[in-house]
């Protein structure tokens, strides 16, 4: 059975797929109410989509690695490929090569090269001075650290000694008080015994 509207019949695929606007949907439904062919077509499409809906989503066999996971961290060799690291490494190598290879050549070079040599010497002097200063600072820091450590150790030992003395004094005082109270009690007991037995007090 064919629809009487022919090629202008409602787009039932768009209908079941939710692509029709509200007005077109209402018109399609109104037409289907009196058209068996369109009812069949819409019904069979609906059944097909219902069957497809039985296919459920599967769980992931394992979770996706997050961007912050270790797996995304660059390997050690990849660090060398980073522009900043590679640039710094290249500059360092250039300076080293310059420092070790150039001095001999500079002395025999032309005036322009001598100007460069003077500049390089100035840079090298500055670098040497900087490194000496760094080492000096490190030595001073180490000496200061050592002195501080010694002072702290001594202070701790002194405090410990003072504590021991205080404890000994407190212990001696407590023993003295204990002796005195024991003696007093003995005397009182003796007096009471004498009063009760009539043996007199010595």
């Amino acid at each position, binding site marked *: 059975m064919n629809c009487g509207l022919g090629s202008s019949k409602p787009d039932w*695929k768009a209908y079941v*797929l939710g*692509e029709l606007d509200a007005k077109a949907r209402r018109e399609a439904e109104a037409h289907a109410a009196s058209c068996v062919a369109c009812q069949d077509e819409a019904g*069979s*499409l609906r*059944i*097909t*989509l*219902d*069957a*497809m809906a*039985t*296919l*459920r*989503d*599967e*769980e*992931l*066999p*394992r*979770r*996706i*690695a*997050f*961007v*912050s996971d270790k797996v*995304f961290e660059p390997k050690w060799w990849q660090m060398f490929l980073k522009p900043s690291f590679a640039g710094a490494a290249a500059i360092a190598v250039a300076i080293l090569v310059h420092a070790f290879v150039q001095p001999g050549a500079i002395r025999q070079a032309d005036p322009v090269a001598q100007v460069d040599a003077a500049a390089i010497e100035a840079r090298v002097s500055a670098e040497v001075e900087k490194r000496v200063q760094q080492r000096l600072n490190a030595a001073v820091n180490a000496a200061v650290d050592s002195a501080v450590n010694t002072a702290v150790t001594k202070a701790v030992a002194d405090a410990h000694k003072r504590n021991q003395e205080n404890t000994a004094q407190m212990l001696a005082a407590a023993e003295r008080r204990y002796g005195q109270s024991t003696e007093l009690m003995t005397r009182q007991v003796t007096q009471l015994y004498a009063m009760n037995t009539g043996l007199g007090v010595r």
Partner: protein
Amino acid sequence: MIFREVEDRDLISKARRGDVEAYNLLVSRWEKRVFNYLLRLVNHREDALDLCQEAFLKAYQNLPKLDDPERFSAWLFRIAHNEAFSLLRRRKPETEYEEPEAKGIGGRMLPIELSLAVESALKVLSDDQREAVLLKVYQGFKFEEMAVILDCPVSTVKSRVYTALDLLKTALAPTVLQK
């Protein structure tokens, strides 16, 4: 759903400012959908997982290029689509898709049997048709969004979906009519 979209947008803007955890949360939200889309497209779990991983990594790297955060899902599926078809193109000469078994299932169908029938029917479709169905029926994208994902006119998208739907209706008819 609206709340979820707002949150996604917020996460995207945070991720674009370098907040890795915001992006990780986006991955958690979308990984299952993207994985299932890829799984049904390439029909191989490990490949689908690798592609999914790659798609999310590329999405992260290209996040600053996303013009409109509102279109994140279409953009993400576009990346996943590119990954999948790159694999399918490499794989094509080596392996042909297996034809679904034309087995008659007698009696009343169980849901699992119906699912298997649908899986088989999807394999009848071409890669383009199957992807169109996956995006439309299983991921719920509009034709316009699909046109962005697939980088083709809306008319092409519509044609692929309609043809695929006709083929699926025919392939599933013997099964669903028994139900």
